[in-house]
């Protein structure tokens, strides 16, 4: 009887760890799906927006002693600017000059950009883990369980960001324009939407989500030059399985991914989480090979 109670406790604890790990996948996957859907490119530099967010939050919080909420807000604005610039300076010329094969080229370009940023961080900031021990101390007592305030904050903030993002896409004029471009570029252009503007904005929003994820999870994951790669990898898995059309798919898929990986790590051992996620992708591929393309059409 008591063993059952202990096991239940462990499982719930793992679930909570998994969900808070899932928050970063949710935010990353939402951004990736947006770029894939609207700009039609796969953004390998997405992990670097995460990294920039994490470093920037670290410097704001540990050096200027800013309130974490304000810091995260500043990081979000900053990441938006970086994403917007990235689209205008690098992707835009490629789209104009790249010719027929520009999609594959854009993938390689984002890869090159990602390498440059990672190694700049390595060269100038160094390979050390930069982190803050916590944003807030303290635990919360919920239904007899001890939850740290931070984890609750992560989850609430992610769900909040997800809802705000959903509202932005569905209800605002800009969001509708973005969805229009995702559906049909020619029709959107014909109805007077400035598509260059939309491409840049969607890149910025996507970078903002990634930067927020990095800043939000700084106490958990710390900042180091390649800190964005693991979340990016899992976010790719999420959108390959969940698709990119439905906003809810990355949210549910991201949390599920976090839980699955946490369970894999705790029961199989460190490092097996990636093997498991690969197995999931392969299975999804065998069962429904054209899922993501039907949605992309």
């Amino acid at each position, binding site marked *: 009887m008591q063993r059952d109670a202990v096991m239940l406790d462990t499982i719930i604890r793992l679930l909570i760890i998994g969900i808070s790990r899932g928050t970063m996948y949710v935010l990353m996957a939402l951004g990736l799906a947006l770029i894939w859907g609207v700009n039609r490119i796969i953004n390998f530099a997405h992990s670097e927006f995460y990294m920039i967010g994490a470093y920037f939050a670290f410097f704001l919080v540990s050096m200027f002693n800013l309130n974490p909420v304000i810091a995260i807000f500043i990081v979000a604005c900053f990441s938006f600017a970086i994403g917007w610039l990235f689209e205008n300076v690098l992707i835009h010329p490629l789209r104009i000059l*790249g010719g027929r094969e520009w*999609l594959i080229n854009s993938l390689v370009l984002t890869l090159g950009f990602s390498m440059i940023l*990672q190694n*700049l961080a390595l060269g100038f900031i160094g390979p050390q883990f930069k982190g803050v021990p916590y944003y807030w101390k303290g635990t919360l007592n919920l239904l007899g369980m001890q939850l740290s305030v931070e984890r609750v904050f992560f989850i609430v903030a992610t769900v909040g960001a997800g809802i705000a993002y959903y509202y932005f896409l569905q209800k605002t004029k800009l969001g509708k324009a973005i969805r229009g471009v995702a559906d049909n570029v020619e029709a959107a252009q014909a109805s007077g939407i400035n598509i260059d503007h939309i491409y840049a904005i969607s890149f910025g929003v996507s970078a903002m989500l990634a930067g927020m994820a990095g800043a939000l999870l700084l106490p958990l994951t710390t900042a180091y030059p390649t800190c964005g790669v693991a979340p990016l*990898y899992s976010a790719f*898995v999420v959108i390959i399985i969940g698709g990119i059309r439905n906003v809810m798919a990355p949210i549910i898929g991201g949390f599920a991914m976090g839980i699955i990986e946490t369970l894999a790590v705790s029961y199989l051992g460190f490092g097996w989480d990636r*093997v498991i996620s690969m197995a999931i992708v392969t299975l999804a591929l065998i069962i429904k090979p054209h899922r993501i393309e039907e949605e992309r059409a």
Partner: protein
Amino acid sequence: MAKRRFLKHLDSRHALVIALPIIFLLFIPVLSGWSTYIMHLVISCLMYGTLASAFDLSLGYLGILNFGFAGFFGAGAYAAGLASTKLGLSPWVSWLLGGAFSCLLGLVTGLLALRFKSKLVFAMFTWFFGLTIQQICYVWIDLTGGMRGLLTPPLPSVKLPFFEINFADRAIRTPYYYTMLMIAISTLVLLYMIVKSRIGITFKAIRDDEIAAEMLGIDTYRAKVLNFTISCFVAGIIGGFYCFYIGVLSPDTVLSTDLTVQILTMSYIGGRGTLWGPLLGSFIVILLLEAFRPLIIYRLIFYGCLLILTMIFFPKGISGIKKYIWKSQ
């Protein structure tokens, strides 16, 4: 028939351009005064160059980006290493086994992943695949040694009637140099024969317009899988060579995405869809990096800048410049 078609493209000017570098490469050990350093450098250039050419067979001729290329290279290396250390097979046999293993992996992955119509999804899937192989090598410590790496024996010496080819001492690079040169030449000849043959024309047709090719009755899926498998086979063979030449395998070096990116950079800089371009690209990139060795931390920044500049301003790479110099083709 394939051979005749291959020879038909080879007029005297081409023959000269092909023969001169080969003769030069043949005499490099003598010219460098049997310097192990220079031989090692040229072996690296040839190795990466051949890998990049095989990579180019899928990227340049079919337009599919195999982003897990390092995975197939490393899988061949690990298979060869494991067959010789754990199974106790002769290194020559294990080398072939390594190639066969990569070929098989390539076949399975190709059959699965080429069902995707989108090239980007395909690239991502192969990336996942490569990362998974790397991860398995990290976590399966009993078999692969994990991060500590896997030590492999050198190739056994070959006794010929008059002299002995001394592979056993790795410090003497000459036998390995000529082995690599032979692999490089035979691989490139093989790839050229494929590219100039009927199936090669099929590849180009698919690259230029897949739907039109399908309407002409070409089995595009089969052609793609074939192309992908050949490319992976070459990667495995070179992986086997690397395994016995370097003597230690670690997931960080042979299986990392950085390796794929290096090969990708070489193909892009040299020019896709030419086969000789990537080889030239590898010589340029490796020699340039060697010249700026003190800046090793910034090496990947250099790669990144090169990639972005090539991508935006010279999408055809060096092979695009060729047409200004040499008006044929």
